[in-house]
């Protein structure tokens, strides 16, 4: 079980590429803009990183649903879902901006997405899910 917690910790650390606060990340996005574009390659790597993160999250949720974890795990899943349920529309925008080469908006969407990942990493930490 400890290994599963470690897996979750690593996936969340893995996915949390940026750990700055929201305002700082958006400011950075606006100032870097087209000088630091988000390419399809970047999007591809980012989404594959998220797949790895969600592999860990889904494993945790499955273990929780099967009763293999303490009952409090359900609360942890619900807390994480507050953030993960915000991801789909952000991803939709990010994909559209990247594919249409709208780099200013792509950078903002990319920062928003990475901030969401950082936010649910913080929730995991607060619930004693170890983050490396």
């Amino acid at each position, binding site marked *: *079980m400890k*290994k*599963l917690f*470690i*897996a979750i910790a*690593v*996936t969340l*650390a*893995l996915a949390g*590429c940026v750990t700055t606060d929201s305002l700082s990340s958006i400011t950075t996005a606006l100032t870097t803009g087209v000088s630091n574009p988000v390419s*399809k*390659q970047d*999007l*591809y*790597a980012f*989404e*594959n*990183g*998220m*797949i*790895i993160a*969600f*592999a*860990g*999250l*889904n*494993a945790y*949720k*499955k*273990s*929780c*649903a099967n009763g293999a974890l303490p009952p409090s795990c*359900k609360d942890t*899943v*619900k807390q*994480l*879902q507050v953030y*993960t*349920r915000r*991801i*789909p529309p952000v*991803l939709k925008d990010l*994909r559209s901006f990247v594919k249409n080469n709208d780099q200013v908006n792509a950078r903002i969407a990319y920062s928003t997405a990475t901030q969401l990942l950082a936010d649910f990493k913080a929730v995991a930490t607060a619930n004693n899910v170890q983050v490396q």
Partner: protein
Amino acid sequence: MDYAAIFDLIAKGLTVVDALMTAGQQAAPAIKAISGIVTGAQQGTVTDDQLTQTEALLDQMISDFNLDI
């Protein structure tokens, strides 16, 4: 392309795969994602088809997690 970040991502991904397999959990999506990262880094570019497949898998996994527990 930030290769150092890519390699770090791959290394951490392998750790996750190991932990998932040890815990008897489904590791195939994570393995597929790592394969995608490696292939993408080697190619230097990604095809629309590769991106579409990755997006479909990610969407499914997000949807699965977001279902009520």
